[in-house]
């Protein structure tokens, strides 16, 4: 299958500032792809380039096989974009906002009413559909903005910081929506500063830094590539005796990182040595109840990367 999005050496400068600087990656159809990076890294600029509302200074991109620079209208017809600042018309009602979007995105005339009503219901806006949006809460405006981005049933959805400024409940609602959108088989590109959010929602992430792609992969891949294997914790029923600790320390490939109460934390890059450590621990009378390697969090990966590039 061809990629939903293919970016090749894409770059955009604003005067002396290289906002996006030679970025290449691909997003597969149906994938939720996270774009991470500090403020000013170039995430928003990248989305604008992919939607053909900004022109690249170098490189090229394909979105659903189309070139956003030359075929902007066709690309935008099949993509939905949630902008960083939710751009709903505050003087219009939710219904009027969706109606406007349906018209300009050329939703077939007989379907407009049904489509608008369906989205109002699905996004929990039905009861206040005819009030001016200016009086809505931030969470409601954001839901309306996402509904608007979906009005023409796009195959690709760009979400630029969809939970910025939302409270935990509203954020959770947005996360649930993203899950639904993924289940509908759409491709999603999600820009976010919330690492936990990226970790929960994204199949793969790309980390931008000063316009360049600093890393690309699943959170697990990035962790393995960028960080030393994380420690393994052995937990005992009661604090382990001196003999147990000494026996474990003697296993090849294992070093003790610390002993704390009932647990021993060991560094053991190879799984083979963990098996060895567990064997001797039990053999020397340790009453082992649990052993596990903690996965790297995206946060650790992210900070390792920032350390790399700054």
């Amino acid at each position, binding site marked *: 299958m061809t990629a939903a999005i293919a970016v090749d050496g894409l770059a955009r400068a604003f005067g002396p500032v290289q906002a996006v600087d030679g970025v290449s990656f691909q997003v597969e159809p149906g994938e939720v792809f996270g774009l991470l990076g500090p403020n000013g890294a170039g995430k928003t600029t990248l989305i604008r380039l992919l939607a053909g509302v900004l022109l690249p200074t170098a490189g090229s991109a394909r979105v659903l096989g189309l070139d956003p620079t030359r075929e902007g209208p066709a690309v935008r017809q099949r993509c939905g974009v949630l902008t960083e600042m939710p751009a709903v*018309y505050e003087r*219009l009602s939710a219904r009027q906002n969706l109606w406007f979007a349906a018209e300009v995105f050329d939703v077939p005339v007989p379907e407009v009413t049904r489509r608008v009503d369906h989205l109002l219901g699905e996004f929990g806006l039905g009861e206040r559909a005819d009030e001016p949006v200016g009086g809505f809460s931030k969470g409601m405006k954001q839901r309306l903005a996402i509904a608007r981005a979906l009005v023409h049933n796009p195959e690709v959805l760009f979400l630029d910081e969809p939970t910025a400024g939302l409270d935990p409940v509203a954020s959770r609602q947005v996360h649930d929506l993203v899950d639904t959108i993924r289940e509908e088989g759409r491709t999603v590109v999600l820009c976010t500063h919330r690492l936990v959010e990226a970790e929960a929602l994204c199949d793969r992430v790309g980390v931008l830094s000063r316009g360049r792609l600093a890393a690309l992969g699943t959170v697990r891949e990035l962790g393995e590539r960028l960080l030393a294997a994380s420690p393994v914790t052995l937990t005992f029923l009661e604090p382990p005796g001196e003999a147990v600790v000494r026996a474990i320390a003697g296993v090849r490939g294992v070093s003790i990182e610390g002993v704390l109460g009932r647990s021993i934390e060991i560094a053991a890059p190879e799984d083979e040595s963990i098996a060895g450590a567990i064997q001797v621990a039990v053999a020397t009378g340790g009453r082992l109840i649990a052993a596990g390697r903690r996965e790297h969090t995206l946060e650790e990966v992210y900070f390792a990367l920032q350390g790399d590039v700054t």
Partner: protein
Amino acid sequence: MNWRTVRAIAKKDLLEVRQNRIAIWSILGVSALFSVGIPLLIGLLPFDTGPSGGDLGPLEALTALMPAAHQDLPIGARIVVLMLGYFLAPLFLMIPLMVTAIVGAESFVGERERRTLEGLLYIPADDLDLYAGKVVAGAVPAILATALNFSAYAVVVNLVSAPLVGGFWFPTPTALVLAAWIGPAIALLGVSGSVLVSTRVETFLEANQLTGMLSMLIVAMVVGQGTGLLVLSLPVLLLFGIVIYAVDIVLVRLGAALFSRDRLMARA
């Protein structure tokens, strides 16, 4: 041209204007003043109906512009005809200018100020349709408002002056040309100017300076005519219209050529 998009953008802009009380009340207020208030006031002034003919002094030259039937009217009646039919009629051109200024403010500059512009740029329409939508959104209501105001003015003028003039006499050919030929030209001038300017300037205020300049042109016409410097005869008006339409074409094409998402986005 994608008319569905053009229509949707125009409709959306008007819905936004409708929610703007100040805009609506200024349009209604100025319209009522021009089309009803002023003609009513002038028509009700106690002009003497005296004998027919008589010399108008410095304004006598203007009598020649009037239809033959009016040239023999008493002085008072001729003054009313001149004021309502000739001097004030150019003020009508303020209506399309005002409407385009107010609707134009909701255009790119208004959308930028309210931070909705970026979202608008993500609609599929190509740059030209987006531009056309904004131009139509400004021009159509301005032309409609001119037509409505002109009709109201005609009714009021005829009602108040019929006894004096001896029947319904408005619109005169020049007034009709002014409204139907020059009016739309001015509307287009205001729209293309304000869209052109509003894609380049940052605030509503700057955008309105241009319309301010254009209204000076109209005031100059009114004053020019009043002082006899400028005689708005039919040929002059027709020619004047041709010149404005030519400028319109240049401005609309310039606006279209300069209009680009990339440029708007890079400034956003």
